[in-house]
């Protein structure tokens, strides 16, 4: 059976791993290769590297760490941040990234999703969505890497998921901004709605604080993977313990 995935997310800013709260006040948490190897050894199923400054600073050059990460990892990894063109995507894939994830550039120009799918196949195209609850609806924000540059897109999250999949996304990472970094639990209601519409793998992001939160998101929202950052970086939840307990709770997990 297909295992549910545990995915540490490493936000990369200026070549080091950082973490903020609700996308703000970033602090350095460590070296990219050291953290990548630590998570590999602890049993992470996959890693995501978000180059969080890229989109807002308009950089498209493949970072030099992609190839280094690929050399040391024997698990898959995804690279996100500032990928606006086929060439930028190709550079990262050729250096060994298994998937590329696009967020703001796809909102600016949705045809980019179709173009990437045609060039590389659906299986390596992830669309990341930063979703915000405005009191009534879930809406999509872009350029969330820098609070001063964050924009409202006017799009409703569920509509954007459907459109992204139709255009060629092979996976959706749904990040609930209200939950980001506060360790209060995943946004189950939103993820359940998204799951109902999303025919491709769906990854939950934002809010993990306890092992119970992971169990809930797999059992209640039926997501394929759960992404988290601070609980892993700060070793609040050790991955081996998390995986053992999830397996004990009856969830299919790779130990």
């Amino acid at each position, binding site marked *: 059976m297909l*295992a549910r995935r545990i995915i540490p997310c490493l936000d990369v800013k200026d070549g080091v791993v950082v973490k903020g709260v609700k996308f703000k006040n970033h602090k350095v948490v460590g070296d990219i290769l050291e953290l990548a190897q630590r998570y590999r050894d602890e049993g992470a199923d996959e890693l995501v590297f978000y180059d969080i400054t890229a989109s807002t600073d308009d950089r498209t050059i493949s970072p030099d760490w992609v190839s280094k990460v690929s050399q040391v990892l*024997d*698990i898959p990894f995804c690279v996100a941040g500032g990928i606006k063109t086929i060439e930028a995507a190709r550079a990262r*894939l050729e250096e060994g990234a298994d998937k590329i994830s696009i967020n703001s550039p796809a909102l600016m120009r949705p045809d980019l999703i179709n173009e990437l799918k045609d060039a590389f196949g*659906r*299986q*390596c195209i992830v669309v990341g969505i930063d979703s915000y609850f405005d009191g009534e609806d879930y809406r999509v924000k872009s350029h969330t890497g820098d609070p001063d540059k964050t924009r409202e897109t006017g799009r409703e999250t569920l509509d954007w998921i459907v459109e992204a999949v139709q255009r060629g996304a092979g996976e959706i990472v749904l990040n609930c901004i209200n939950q980001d970094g506060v360790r209060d639990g995943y946004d189950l209601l939103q993820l359940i709605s998204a799951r109902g519409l999303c025919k491709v793998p769906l990854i939950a992001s934002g809010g993990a604080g306890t092992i119970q939160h992971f169990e809930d998101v797999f059992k209640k929202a039926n997501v394929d993977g759960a992404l988290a950052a601070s609980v892993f970086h700060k070793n609040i939840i050790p991955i081996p313990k998390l995986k053992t307990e999830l397996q004990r709770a009856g969830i299919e997990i*790779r130990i």
Partner: protein
Amino acid sequence: MNVVIVDTGCANLASVGFALDRIGAKKTITKDPKKIKKAKRVILPGVGAAPFAMQNLRERELVETLQNLTQPILGICLGMQLLFNFTEEGEVPALGMVHGRVLDLETGNQPSPHMGWNTLENVADDPLLKGVNSGDYAYFVHSYAVPVDHYTLASTTHGDTFSAIIRQDNIFGCQFHPERSGATGARILENFLKASL
């Protein structure tokens, strides 16, 4: 061991190369038919779409070279699918080295593409799979698959059950990515290079 990775123009060449580096193998990445013919082992990687990959092989004039290889060859992911007669992906003929068709994977009510770690089942007794057991996990990313048949060395289920590993004489294939499948993947690559096949 002289091992060649066929430069198919697809994107996962580097990852396969790095995986061989990690197990201490000396590899050459090439599209030169002479070097491919002379290699002791040949790896045919592949990601992306089948029609594009076949077109690349034709443009590089590698179709006949690959079809006539007698040394062990290992197709990975799309590279494995290309070994068959025909693929439903783009409805195109492939290399035809193994008799069979690649079908659109029926995942039932589960998500497609089949993406993530899944178990190898019914693992056959074969030198390629020494030290690999049923229940071991491997990393898959694909939407098309080869049905289970006489050449199947291990199967996996995601909706339908399909061939995870195949062998016909000197021709081997893995539907998953051994270069991204942790210790299990490394073991399979090592067996492919070192075992007497």
